[in-house]
């Protein structure tokens, strides 16, 4: 038994020493719980008073009566309904909520894991980073954050089914600062604020697909340029034994900027959780003007391409040597990704095809003999390239460019 325990001890230490499973710094979290602010220390008596006020306010018979406008005290288990005026309140000392008029929400959660259920209307939330988690749930999905500024709207959208008019819940999320994780019935995705642009998306039962559709509105036609920062936490091997060709990033920041362009270049960071590590997936699709003009009618086709892209593009690829170096040193990396227009030769069979470029680029010539006397037909497509991977030192601004490598092209 003692030998087994020694073996276990070494296994634990090697995970930390070689594998980077280092102890996290939880001091802020612990200090926040051990030394709550005055307001938090007063929470119990205040919560009791608030509960009494709310109990009176929502006593059967007048439960729907709106609370007074302005700041209020809120406690778990209570329901807040606003009338013509907005209402502000704080949860847990780190979540600041601003409820729009004609909204309704329930307060749930627990200490450092505050949570509200938005039944109707809009709530705008600002969450202090590094203190605790915060979740807004709706009938259409949920938004989880640890420090950001965003708003959630839940509304009823009419639709016809079998000649009957029905309603379904729809959730709109706007992110003003930071990154939020939205979880819908069919998947999870991040929404990222981008400079002064407000990222907006729709999430209900369609989840990821609807986020992509929302990005693909004509107003969002773009050439993608994005930056990811994070830690390399694992390397997968390639055909040559032990040669790392792809890495998994522990994402610490995502930034995305867009420019007007004819084609929409869409990249949707998704997460795949392995323990507490975020493994990044970057499904990429390219949409042309015709597809975008088609709007909702093109949705099924776009959906198919998104699904195919997710299947194909499991991970972004980095320079093997740099990836290994970053992994060995446990350093943060910054990856600059850009959509780059390139001219590619089309196979003769596809030369006359002026349709949508395939997300994988041109296919092979399927064994047909090309006409070498004619000028080869070409087509401009946008490829996704990693233009720079930088291993960061202690701070982002101290990073230095270290190399580049083209990623798996869309």
């Amino acid at each position, binding site marked *: *038994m*003692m*030998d087994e*325990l*020694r*073996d*276990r*001890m*070494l*296994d*634990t*230490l*090697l*995970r*930390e*020493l*070689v*594998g980077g*499973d*280092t*102890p*996290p*710094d*939880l*001091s802020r*979290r*612990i*200090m926040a*719980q*051990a*030394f709550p602010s005055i307001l938090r220390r007063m929470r119990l008596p205040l919560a009791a008073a608030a509960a009494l006020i709310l109990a009176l306010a929502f006593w059967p018979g007048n439960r729907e009566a709106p609370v007074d406008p302005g700041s209020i005290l809120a406690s778990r288990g209570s329901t807040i309904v606003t009338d013509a005026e907005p209402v502000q309140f704080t949860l847990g000392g780190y979540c600041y909520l601003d409820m729009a008029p004609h909204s309704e929400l329930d307060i749930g959660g627990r200490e450092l894991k505050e949570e509200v259920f938005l039944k109707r209307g809009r709530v705008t939330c600002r969450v202090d980073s590094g203190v605790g988690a915060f979740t807004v749930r709706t009938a259409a999905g949920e938004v989880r954050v640890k420090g950001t500024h965003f708003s959630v709207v839940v509304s009823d959208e009419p639709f016809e089914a079998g000649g009957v008019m029905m309603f379904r819940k729809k959730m709109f999320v706007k992110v003003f600062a930071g990154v939020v994780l939205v979880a819908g019935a069919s998947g999870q995705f991040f929404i990222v604020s981008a400079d002064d642009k407000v990222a907006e998306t729709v999430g209900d039962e369609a989840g990821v697909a609807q986020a992509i559709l929302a990005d693909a509105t004509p107003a969002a036609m773009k050439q993608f340029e994005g930056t990811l920062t994070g830690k390399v936490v*694992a*390397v*997968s*091997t390639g055909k040559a*034994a*032990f040669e*790392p060709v792809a890495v998994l990033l522990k994402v610490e920041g995502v930034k995305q900027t867009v420019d007007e362009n004819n084609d929409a270049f869409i990249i949707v960071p998704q997460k795949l959780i392995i*323990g*507490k590590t975020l493994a990044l997936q970057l499904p990429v699709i390219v949409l042309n003007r015709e597809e975008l003009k088609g709007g909702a009618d093109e949705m099924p086709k776009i959906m198919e391409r998104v699904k195919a892209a997710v299947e194909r593009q499991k991970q972004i690829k980095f320079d093997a040597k740099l990836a290994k170096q970053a*992994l*060995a040193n446990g350093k943060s990396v910054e990856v600059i990704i850009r959509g780059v227009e390139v001219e590619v030769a089309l196979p003769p069979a596809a030369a006359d095809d002026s349709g949508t470029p395939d997300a994988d680029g041109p296919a092979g010539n399927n064994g047909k003999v090309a006409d070498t006397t004619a000028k080869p037909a070409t087509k401009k497509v946008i490829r996704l390239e990693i233009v720079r991977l930088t291993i960061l030192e202690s701070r982002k601004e101290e990073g230095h460019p270290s190399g580049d490598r083209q990623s798996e092209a869309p």
Partner: protein
Amino acid sequence: VDRDVFERIVLAHQAGIYRYLRYLGASESVAEDVLQDTFIVLMRNPTAHTMEPNVRLAAWLRGVARNKFLTHCRRQKRRKPLEDGTLMNKAELVWRREFLRQSDGFDYMDALRRCVDALPEKQRLAIEMRYDRRESRSGMARLLGMTENGVKSLLRRVRAALGDCVRRRIASEEGAE
């Protein structure tokens, strides 16, 4: 309780307690929660945080963490390899005698780092694959042309060799002093 004193204790001991909980079999998230609970217990014991020297306080914190983790395991009704109280006491003994040795384990980690660097090629490759690249046992077996049991034995042997190497290094360094 003085805020600064408490914060200093948290900063000094959080890594050690987290590492200890992972050794006992706690997942990352459970280790984080138990660690937080442990310091809250400390907060509510005004006499505990004045303990001197640090080794005694560390032992006290490990005891609290161990009990909290045991309670968690029982509540989850999931059998953990070390959930039995007697086993946990033995685990504590190994941790204290082999890893801590009247310190915070820094010298052990340092010696282990050097021992890993000094491993023969094949053994170092196995360690790198297992811990650095997080290959599964089956993945390693495929790449190394071995059976899964063979990989398991190889890793055990390498860890045992590393343990011996660390003990020798520490003994020689202590002898030199």
